[in-house]
């Protein structure tokens, strides 16, 4: 079969309101104007079974080879390098999801079994990732192939199975992306990247899971490595950075203590004041006054 194409109108997709498109396509010739660059509204995965495809994803010029998976996020521009589809075989799937306004988190809808923490961690990986292609990712091909078989057979339990496979696809993509971005060899280097990310998003309420996933580690292994390397638990290390930044702001600006507390990631000025005093012996206002007197 050279083509398998499900759209919103297809009967097979009725039990899956969140799947907008599922397709398998094999073409032996160049298909002109069949892959024009446009803004993708939702999350899309393209898996290359065969061929050598030149695509533009979010401004990145990518060449995809068999076994590669392209991840296209909501709002990104995607299309063929010359708006055409080169000879090749691809799977794709488009999933309807929104973005939480507040924190830019993916909201996946009712079918989704991820916990809130997992959702945050997955969103963080997808959005902080700067390479849209996961290479050498045959499992993705197997998952999509199994999905197609399930759509076609419609045997008992197929709805659940397809949703399970979709979860698998998202989880494995996230894991591959993180280990692709981290060699799992050079801890100091990976850790400094993480530190930079934390500093750039200090007001975000980080969880250990979210930090761990950025270093391609499980939460336990991550906490152990961080403790070993820095002497601090991940959350205490984060408090260190928060207080250091707060000290800088207290010294350099006239901004209110509450403003500073929120900016560096404490959830209230009381929380900030207590932590600050416990560590330094001063309340933030005393510290500022003391410093100005010098």
């Amino acid at each position: 079969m050279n083509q398998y194409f499900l759209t919103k109108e297809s009967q097979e997709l009725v039990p899956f309101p969140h799947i907008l498109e599922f397709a398998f396509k094999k073409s032996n010739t160049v298909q002109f104007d069949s892959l024009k660059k446009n803004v993708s509204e939702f999350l899309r995965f393209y898996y290359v079974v065969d061929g050598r495809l030149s695509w533009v994803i979010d401004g990145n010029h990518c060449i995809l080879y068999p076994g590669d998976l392209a991840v296209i996020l909501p709002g990104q521009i995607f299309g063929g390098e010359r708006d055409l589809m080169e000879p090749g075989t691809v799977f794709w799937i488009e999933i309807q999801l929104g973005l939480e306004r507040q924190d830019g988190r993916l909201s996946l809808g009712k079918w989704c079994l991820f916990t809130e923490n997992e959702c945050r961690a997955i969103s963080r990986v997808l959005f902080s990732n700067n390479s849209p292609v996961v290479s050498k990712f045959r499992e993705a091909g197997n998952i999509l192939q199994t999905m197609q078989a399930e759509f076609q057979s419609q045997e008992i339990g197929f709805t659940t199975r397809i949703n399970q496979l979709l979860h698998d696809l998202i989880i494995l993509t996230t894991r591959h992306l993180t280990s692709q971005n981290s060699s799992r060899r050079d801890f100091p280097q990976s850790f400094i990247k993480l530190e930079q990310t934390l500093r750039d998003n200090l007001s975000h309420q980080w969880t250990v899971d979210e930090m761990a996933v950025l270093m391609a580690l499980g939460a336990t292994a991550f906490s152990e490595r961080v403790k070993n390397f820095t002497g601090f638990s991940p959350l205490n290390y984060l408090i260190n950075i928060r207080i250091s930044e707060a000290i800088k702001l207290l010294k350099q600006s006239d901004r209110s203590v509450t403003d500073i507390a929120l900016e560096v990631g404490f959830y209230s000025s009381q929380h900030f004041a207590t932590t600050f005093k416990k560590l330094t012996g001063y309340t933030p206002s005393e510290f500022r006054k003391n410093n100005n007197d010098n």
Partner: protein
Amino acid sequence: MNCIITVEIGTGAIRVAAFDLQGNMLGTSKGAYPTFHIKPDFSEQDPEQIFITMLYILKNFLNEKIYPNGYKVHRVCFSSAMHSVLPIDRKGVPLGKAMVWSDNRAKNEAAQLRSIELGHLLYQTTGTPIHAMSPLNKITWLKNNEPDRFNDSSKFLSIKTYIIHQLTGEYVIDFSVASATGLMNIHTTKWEPAALKYAGITESSLPDLVPIFYSPKLKKEYQVSLGLPDDVKILVGSSDGCMATLGAGVYDDGKATVTLEESGAVRVIGKQILQDKNERLFNYLLTEGIYVSGGPTNNAGSVFEWFATQFGDFKKAFDLEDCMDTLIFDAGKVRPGAEGLIFLPYLQGERAPIWNANARGVYFGLNIKHEQKHMVRATIEGILYAIYSIGKTLQEHLAITDLTANGTFASFPLWTQMMADVFNKPVRIKQGPGADSVAVGSFLVSATEIGLYKSLDEAAATVELPDTYMPDTDVHAAYMKHFRIFEKLAVKLKDEFDDIADLQHENR
């Protein structure tokens, strides 16, 4: 029971330790902070993060390990890495981050100063080799490249000065750290006017010079929040290098110590300044009239960690220790000399004795029979040849009969034995807990200040190093055959080092 706390403000971490008054180590703790490299050659640290890390670690350490065991803190003695520069404004607020010892941005300033007569004069008066690491050149860099920040600066501090100021309100710098700035005259222990003039600053832009035993008064708030007694004394202490030398028990003629951490050094202590005509050795002040002399290398543990990171087998994610242990085990299976494979470890340029920022790493003599284990062996041997070449330079000035070793990488038994064989001298070391010689040195300074010892000399004599590695003369002879080639290559490749450094510079 009284105890002494030592606080080391190191290159990448705060290390605190506690000792009872007999010198037994009661416990240690550490907290790390990052070094930021926002541009090539830039190495910076956040002074506030260092301060908070120090408070955090110290406070937890006291509350968890010291107070519950009934100890009362009698002295807190500081030490720190050398060569850092932190400009502050008129209100005492840091103007950006601190440049740390490894910051290399002032390399052109250093080359410039080395080429004029004043450079030679300043080496003789300040004891600091003319190099990008030296605060003299870093401040000159600021003047030349960031005139606004330079003009806004009311003072140029060391990181330790900043931390001590936070705690006490005083801007002070001890003789040891000051003697590594290239700005202090080591003969008079005053700021050197010629150096200040060259950097475009005056004495008022620098902290007050104080002896290592100087004790500024701790602010009440910190005393209370740390739970320290009213009569506790803060000692400004010395530099990590000087403390490590003292803590290794080196004080008499003929004794030298090798430190192998990320970087490394060979050092001696004496009453004499070693005036090296090629300006290869530093002379820092431990205290008035007592000099720590020697040479530093950029490429010690960091090079082995590089090798392990690139080529080791990581069975567990990020488990570098395990990976290094396996590599060292493999290296032990190869005969000394690595079957004719020689490694120049100059991955980060080199300081003593060749002082060539453009030097680069070289594997020399590779043949088809060499395996990974030979490369591991050659890597370790190369690091030790570089250390030996510093020792050899020192021996042009004095005889070394007794060698001690300290630092993470010196503590691997294979490395310690190789060091004994390369130097053809017994190497004494203390392995395991209580072996941190910077902390031991800081304890000895405190104990001397209290009056437990009459002098640092007497204090140093109490250091016990129970493990001795004896050299094997035949192995030494094998190493020397390779070292002769190593030594020639290090000099012979100078032009090619310059060329390749240029190419690498263009490519980045």
